[in-house]
């Protein structure tokens, strides 16, 4: 049985109708060779000065071992650039930790990885990645026109007007090409269909590891009552105030399951009532939440407005690094009105507030945390408190703390008094250190489902095909795999160079999807995934025509080639 997630329903429906912007048609080269290598458009000159020759283009990449598909895709593109375009491109695979530090130091020409939109909120890409002062704008892309739109969209309360702005933002980035998408990845996960009602399985952008699935999945038998699952890296930090607890999914999944937030993003990535039954914007900077009545924390104490106010106020006072972006810099004040009403006043209009703040900040029990902070003497930096079996998490979420043997297992019994109490009794994370062991554990019944799958997708799909007791789901996720280019130094500080690169990447997408990712992916031309239907701009500008098209763009911009086929900068421009 193959079950497609709501977010995955868009698979196959996206067309590549979106066409290149104002790209010119291919001109005939003088040498008459024509053909697919683009030499038809090439301007070949003799005796070009040394300084116009292009230096090696460094493609910063993850190692093949880390992600074979991604590595192969990089190699393919780099080879085409070198062989067919005469652009000397070098794949430079380094350890995962080195990629980000070199990227942030600007020591690269292009860098490839996968990136998602936080909770399906486009703002996390539009401002953070591409605005001139965006906190993660490592490409150095800068455009006044873009900045204006980027900041306007986060303040635009009219949804349709905001959609228009988000589309415009995609179009500018599409034209300017600081980012070049390789593909929208599709993910495949498997579960034991002999233990669960297949109709009760819920797939979201994160596959099976989402709260809707874990609260709604219906066990068929005793074995299904306890869900044992993998998590690639074992959880290592479960203090909900720590930056590491809300980032990587190995920690964020259990943290999110043990706590309630005011709202949660639903399977369709829409904001859904959770601890708050409703909310209302009174004006652009004031929003009021109505809390659900009758909720309790895992220790039996009631959840009230004062816990919510305490949580946010504590963050405003102590400024935990994890919540600087979405709470400290955004919220001006928070007040309660009675036991079940909370009003936030924002520094300035910030439309993503519902998803990126109310949907992420866990509601903490004031009585328990004040006690924790006092006992440990950690009143100023509560995110430093070490959370263990002796000092567990007390939240109000659908799952509660059980036992934690760091590195080998984490058990979370379900919380029966929750308004969305799970149908299962317990969720257990048991990491195994190889994908082969994970695969066998699913087959022999040690695992009930796979929260993560980094192994061979074809192998897993084959097992599902062969065995009646396995079911599978697919999802498109909310991310894309892209190459970001360094707009601060040659050659990619020159827009035509980026556009030409885009044409080569686009021309390679089908091969990448079929060869490197076993067909699990879709062509991609913008940074907003089509699973975010409302925000995705399918008419985003991109460049096509393959090598021929790329050559034309470069030739029009004045680039020339020597008789050995090496590219040279236009007159007046030099390399690094």
């Amino acid at each position, binding site marked *: 049985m193959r079950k497609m997630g709501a977010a995955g329903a868009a698979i196959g429906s996206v067309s590549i109708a979106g066409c290149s912007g104002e790209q010119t048609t291919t001109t005939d080269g003088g040498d008459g060779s024509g053909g697919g290598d683009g030499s038809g458009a090439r301007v070949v000159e003799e005796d070009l000065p040394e300084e116009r020759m292009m230096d090696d283009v460094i493609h910063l990449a993850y190692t093949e071992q880390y992600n074979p598909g991604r590595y192969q895709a990089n190699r393919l593109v780099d080879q085409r650039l070198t062989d067919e375009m005469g652009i000397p491109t070098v794949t430079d695979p380094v350890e995962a930790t*080195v990629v980000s530090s070199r990227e942030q130091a600007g020591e690269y020409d292009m860098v490839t990885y996968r990136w998602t939109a936080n909770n399906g909120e486009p703002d996390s890409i539009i401002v953070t990645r591409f605005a001139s002062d965006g906190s993660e704008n490592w490409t150095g892309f800068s455009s006044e026109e873009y900045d204006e739109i980027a900041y306007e969209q986060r303040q635009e309360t009219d949804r349709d007007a905001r959609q228009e702005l988000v589309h415009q933002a995609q179009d500018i980035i599409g034209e300017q090409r600081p980012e070049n998408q390789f593909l929208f990845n599709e993910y495949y996960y498997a579960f034991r269909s002999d233990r669960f009602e297949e109709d009760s399985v819920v797939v979201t952008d994160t596959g099976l590891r989402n709260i809707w699935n874990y609260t709604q999945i219906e066990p068929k038998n005793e074995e299904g009552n306890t869900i044992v699952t993998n998590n690639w890296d074992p959880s290592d930090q479960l203090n909900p105030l720590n930056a*590491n607890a809300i980032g990587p999914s190995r920690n964020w999944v259990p943290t999110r399951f043990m706590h309630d937030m005011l709202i949660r993003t639903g399977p369709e990535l829409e904001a859904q009532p959770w601890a708050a039954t409703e909310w209302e914007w009174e004006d652009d900077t004031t929003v009021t939440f109505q809390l659900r009545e009758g909720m309790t924390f895992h220790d039996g104490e009631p959840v009230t407005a004062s816990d919510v106010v305490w949580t946010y106020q504590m963050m405003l006072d102590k400024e935990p690094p994890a919540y600087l972006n979405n709470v400290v810099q955004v919220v001006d004040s928070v007040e309660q009105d009675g036991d079940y009403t909370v009003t936030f006043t924002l520094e300035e209009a910030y439309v993503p507030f519902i998803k990126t703040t109310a949907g992420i900040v866990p509601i903490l029990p004031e009585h328990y945390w004040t006690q924790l902070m006092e006992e440990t003497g950690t009143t100023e930096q509560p995110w*430093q408190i*070490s959370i263990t079996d002796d000092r567990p998490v007390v939240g109000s979420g659908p799952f509660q703390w059980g036992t934690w043997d760091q590195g080998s*297992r984490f058990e979370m019994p379900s919380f029966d008094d929750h308004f969305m109490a799970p149908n299962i009794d317990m969720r257990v994370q048991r990491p195994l*250190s190889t994908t082969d062991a994970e695969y066998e554990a699913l087959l*022999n019944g040690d695992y009930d489902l796979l929260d993560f799958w980094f192994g061979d997708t074809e192998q897993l799909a084959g097992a599902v095909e062969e065995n009646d007791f396995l079911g599978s789901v697919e999802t498109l996720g909310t991310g894309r795999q892209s190459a970001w280019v360094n707009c601060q130094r040659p050659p990619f500080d020159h827009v035509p160079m980026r556009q030409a690169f885009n044409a080569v990447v686009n021309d390679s997408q089908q091969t990448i999807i079929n060869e490197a990712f076993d067909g699990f992916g879709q062509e991609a031309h913008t940074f907003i995934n089509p699973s975010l239907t409302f925000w995705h701009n399918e008419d985003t500008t991109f460049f096509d025509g393959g090598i021929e098209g790329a050559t034309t763009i470069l030739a029009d911009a004045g680039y020339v080639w020597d008789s050995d086929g090496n590219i040279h900068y236009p007159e007046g421009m030099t390399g690094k």
Partner: protein
Amino acid sequence: MVNKRYIARRLALMVLSIFIVITILFFLFRQVPGGPMSAFTNPRMSQAARQAIIEQYGLNDPLWRQYLRYMVNVVQLDFGQSFYYGNSVSSLIFDRFVNTMSLMLTAFVISYTVGTYLGAQLGWIRGTTKERLGMVAVLFVRSMPVFWTGMVVLYVFSFQLGLFPIGGMRGTGASYSTMAEKFLSTDFLYHVALPVFTLCTYYTGLPLLLMRNNLLEVLSESYIDTARAKGLTSRRVLFVHAARNAILPVVTAFAIAIGFAVGGQVLIETVYSWPGLGREMVQASLRSDYPVAQAAFALLSVIVITMNFVADIAYTYLDPRVSLGES
């Protein structure tokens, strides 16, 4: 026997070696590209948040000041907080250390007992077909890479026959109130069986070969002939007269092996998903989690240095002819 001044000198040298090792580790890990911040894998963290964390861990101070602070703490046995886990390094390392030792000690005790015994037997029956076959078998098993043996054993006994768990240290739902309960339960034995078996196939070889070769030498000594002439049973000659003298190098090998056991068997820990110190050391290095990596390597070197010392001292008791520190 053992000279007190000699012991004092050795102890001073040990402290000096450990100091040098810890210093080298401190600077070595800071040369690794990447840096601890890139281990915070949440790419959404803003620059301000990053800066806050760098300051929190004192990473913005000059290196010499970080070094001084670290050394002062280490002298007080405070290894700081893990960048990655945010918890105390000491308790983390202790936890992993116990896990690793529960696996490695079990394997070593079994390997060295069985190996010594079999080695003595093989030496005794030297020259027979049985001995030759035995030697071929030992060399064959000893030549198999331990991770490969692990994968084959796992494949046969776990994937195919389903007799043993696929990995990890304990089963779902198992709970214990004390440490002793944790390591003596049938659940633990069930999980430790395959990795220990795998390790034993590899580690039994060394004591076995050592024992056999030494025994061959000892057997040519005249006191063995005397023992035989007295009419003692061959069992008594072998175990009371010959084996006791042949065992010395095995004792040294055992002590040194225990020292290195702390580092665990990274490959075996990976194959069997064992949450041990070996894997933690590798990961801490990759994550640039300096405090954990430094403490783990420091622990490893302290134990190796100490066990070497212990082996030397043990020698003087096992063989009264050996004396240390007398020129």
